[in-house]
C-alpha cells in the first residue's frame, strides 16, 4: 500500500502528455473566455443586486439538500448493487444510470408525470395530504437529486467492488451483524469513494438546469437557482449572465477545492 517514489522509466511519453495538455486546454479555455468577457467594471454593483444573492443561496441550499438525499438513498443502493444477491443486478445497474443518459428536460417531464398534480403518485399526494411538489423549493431538490444521484451511486458502487469483502467476512466471523459490519468496516474503507461521489453529486446538482426548470418552474426566491437565473439573464442582459456564471464558478470551485484538501488527500 505504500506509494512507490521511483518514477517508472525516465521521461514522460509525448503520446500521453500532448493529448493531456490539449484536453486540459479544451476544458479551461472556455473558462478563460468567460473571465475575459466578464464586465469587471460593473461587477461589484451587480454582485450587490439582491437577486444574485438570493439565487446563489437557493442554489447552495438546494444542491446540498439534494446531496444529503442522494447520500441517504444512494449509498444503500450502491451497497445493494455491489453486495446484495438481487436477481438481474446487471439490468438494475444499467437502469440506475438512466438519468445520466436522459436529457434533463425529459427527466423533468417524467417527474411531472409521476409527481405532478395529476401524476401517477402526485395526484394522491395532492388529494390525501394537500402536497403539491411542482413549483416549490422541494421540487427543485427532487429534480436535482434525480439527475445527480447516479453519480454518487456509481462512485460508491465502484469503491465497494474494489474493496476487499474479506474484511466484512472477518467481521462476520467475529460476530458482527451485517449492519454493524457495514457501518464499522465497509463504510470507513470506502470513504474516499463516498466523498468523491458526494462531491460529483453536489457539483452536478449545483449546475442542474433542465429538470429543474421543467419540474419546478421558475420563480425568484423559490425555484430560481443560479443556472436558471443565468439562462434568463442571457436572453436580456448577457453581461449579467456572465457575472452570475462567474460567481457560480468561483463558489463551486472554492467549495470543491476546500473539500478536496480536507478529504481527498491523495499523493500530491
Amino acid at each position, binding site marked *: 500500500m505504500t506509494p512507490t517514489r521511483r518514477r517508472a522509466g525516465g521521461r514522460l511519453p509525448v503520446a500521453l502528455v500532448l493529448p493531456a495538455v490539449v484536453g486540459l486546454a479544451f476544458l479551461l479555455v472556455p473558462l478563460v473566455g468567460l473571465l475575459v468577457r466578464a464586465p469587471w467594471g460593473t461587477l461589484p454593483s451587480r454582485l450587490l443586486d439582491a437577486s444574485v444573492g438570493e439565487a446563489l443561496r437557493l442554489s447552495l441550499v438546494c444542491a446540498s439538500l439534494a446531496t444529503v438525499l442522494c447520500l441517504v438513498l444512494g449509498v444503500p443502493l450502491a451497497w445493494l448493487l455491489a453486495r446484495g444477491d438481487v436477481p438481474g443486478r446487471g439490468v438494475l445497474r444499467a437502469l440506475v444510470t438512466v438519468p445520466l443518459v436522459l436529457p434533463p428536460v425529459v427527466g423533468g417531464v417524467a417527474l411531472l408525470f409521476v409527481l405532478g398534480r*395529476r401524476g401517477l403518485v402526485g395526484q394522491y399526494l395532492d388529494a390525501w395530504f394537500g402536497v403539491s411538489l411542482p413549483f416549490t423549493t422541494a421540487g427543485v431538490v427532487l429534480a436535482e437529486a434525480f439527475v445527480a444521484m447516479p453519480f454518487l451511486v456509481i462512485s460508491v458502487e465502484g469503491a465497494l467492488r474494489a474493496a476487499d469483502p474479506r474484511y466484512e467476512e472477518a467481521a462476520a466471523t467475529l460476530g458482527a451483524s451485517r449492519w454493524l459490519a457495514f457501518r464499522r468496516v465497509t463504510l470507513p474503507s470506502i470513504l474516499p469513494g463516498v466523498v468523491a461521489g458526494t462531491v460529483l453529486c453536489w457539483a452536478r446538482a449545483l449546475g442542474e438546469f433542465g429538470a429543474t426548470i421543467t419540474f419546478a418552474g421558475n420563480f425568484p426566491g423559490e425555484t430560481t437557482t443560479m443556472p436558471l437565473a443565468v439562462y434568463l439573464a442571457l436572453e436580456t442582459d448577457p453581461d449579467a449572465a456572465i457575472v452570475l456564471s462567474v460567481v457560480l464558478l468561483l463558489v463551486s470551485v472554492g467549495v470543491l477545492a476546500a473539500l478536496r484538501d480536507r478529504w481527498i488527500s491523495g499523493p500530491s
Partner: protein
Amino acid sequence: MRAFALVALLLVAGCGTAGTAGTAVDGRVTVFAAASLTGTFEQLGEEFEAANPGVDVVFNFGGSSGLAQQIAQGAPADVFASAAPANMAQVADAGGTAAEPVTFARNRLEIAVPAGNPAGITGLADFADADAKIALCAEQVPCGAAAKRAFEAAGVTARPDTVEQDVKAVLTKVRLGEVDAALVYRTDVRSAGGDVEGIEFPEADRTVNDYPIAPLAKARNAAGARAFVDFVRSDRGRAVLAEAGFEAP
C-alpha cells in the same frame, strides 16, 4: 470560427449574384420565429416549400427576446418574425434588418385553463388568489409584457407560481394540468385543442401584440428571405394566420 465566417461570406456572395440575376429562389431559408407562431409557420413553411421546389425552410422557434439576442450574437438567420415590435427594434436598431419590418399579424391574450376548468377560474381577479396555481410568461418576453399590461388595466396583482421563458412552456404547464390558470395567446389556446379551454376577459384589448417580420441584413439567402416574407404577407399567408386565430394588421 474563421472558416465558418468564410463559408457564410461565400454563401452570401453567391446568393447576391443569384438575386441580381433574377433566378427563382432555392436553397435553405432559416426563419427565426416567436414560439407563438410555431404551428402556423410550420404549415406556411411546408406550403412555401411545395410552391418553390428546391427550397428548404428551417425554423428556430423560441421566445422573441432570446431570438433577438441570438441574431445579435451572429446566429445564421435569414428572416426574423417577432411577437413584439420591441424585440424586432433590438435587431433593426443595430442595422440587422435588410428591409423595414412590417406588421403581418396581431394576437391577444386569453386565460387558459385545463379542460373542465377544475379551479373554476372566471377572470383576471382569480390570478391574485394565492391558492390557485398560476403560470405566466416572464416580463422580458412579449406575452409577459402583454400580461403585465392586462393586470395593470384590471388593477390585479398577479401571484404566479412560475414565470416561464416562452409562451409554449406556459401552455405545456396548463396542458399537463399542473397549473389552474395561465395567460397565453388566443392562438395558443386554439392550438392546444381539447386539452385547454380559453376564457376571454375585458382587458384583453390592452394585450394586443403586433407581430413584425423582416428579412435580415446578414441573410445567407437574401432572395429566399424576401420571398418567404412576401409569402407570409400574401392572401394565403393571411388565411392560414386567421385560421389559427391571429387578427389581421
